[in-house]
């Protein structure tokens, strides 16, 4: 099995996630796209762990999973707070800090 398979799949998932972050307006959808990006990265970590024979890549993939869980928890709490204050989670309406 070629390493390029996994790496290209990771690149494709990453770019789809980037498109989602740019195109989506709903904050929950943006968080989902960020999950796509994080999964693409840990797929690369695992592929490189298999390629090099060292297990460190899998350790990093597990750290990515843990950080992603924390990120989703805090991110959704923030989205809930924004929704409670503004009755909307459209990201382009959050422009109070615009100079």
């Amino acid at each position, binding site marked *: 099995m070629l390493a390029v398979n996994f790496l290209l799949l990771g690149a494709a998932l990453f770019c789809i996630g*980037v*498109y989602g972050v*740019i195109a989506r307006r709903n904050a929950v959808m943006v968080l989902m796209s960020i999950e796509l990006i994080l999964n693409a990265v840990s797929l690369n970590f695992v592929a490189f762990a*298999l390629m090099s024979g060292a297990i460190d890549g899998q350790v990093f993939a597990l750290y990515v999973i843990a950080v992603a869980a924390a990120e989703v928890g805090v991110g959704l709490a923030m989205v809930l707070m924004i929704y409670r204050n503004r009755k909307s989670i459209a990201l382009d309406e959050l422009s109070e800090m615009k100079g």
Partner: protein
Amino acid sequence: MNALILATDNVNVAQNVAFGIIAAVMIFAALSVVTTKNVVHAALWLVMVLAGVAAQYVLAAAEFVAVSQVLVYIGAVMVLFLFGIMLTRAQIGKETGLNNKQWALGIPVALVLFGLLAWVIVDAFGDDVLPDRGPAPTVMLSDQFLSIYLLPFIAISFVLLAAAIGAIVLARKD
């Protein structure tokens, strides 16, 4: 691409066929996540992508990571997402205004980024073959976690604690 890979020598055909099928399903599901008009459907497509990633981990001989992926992502994170959708949406179903006004800008950005990444990857790792080794024993993983990665391991537990407390503080009503 896959036909070309299958034609090369000393390649595990079953592994490649499984990889191709799962990869196609994952790409389709990921595209559906970012294009569907229904937020709940996007969450369900995301489950497909995450399950596909877990299956790819199994193919890449990383079984413990695959099990963690299923437990944490499909078990916990997706429930959080569905709760988030439920608590921030009045009606379930199709809705308009999920995309930005400048959403079309994302297509060239993603395509150019993919072209660049694919070019670099093929240039750097074009003919590297993944060795056909069995799954690494989970004991190796725990040895790493409890020896040289012990400090990050403790740090990540504090990150999770802080995230849990922070989420409660942010989301409580007062």
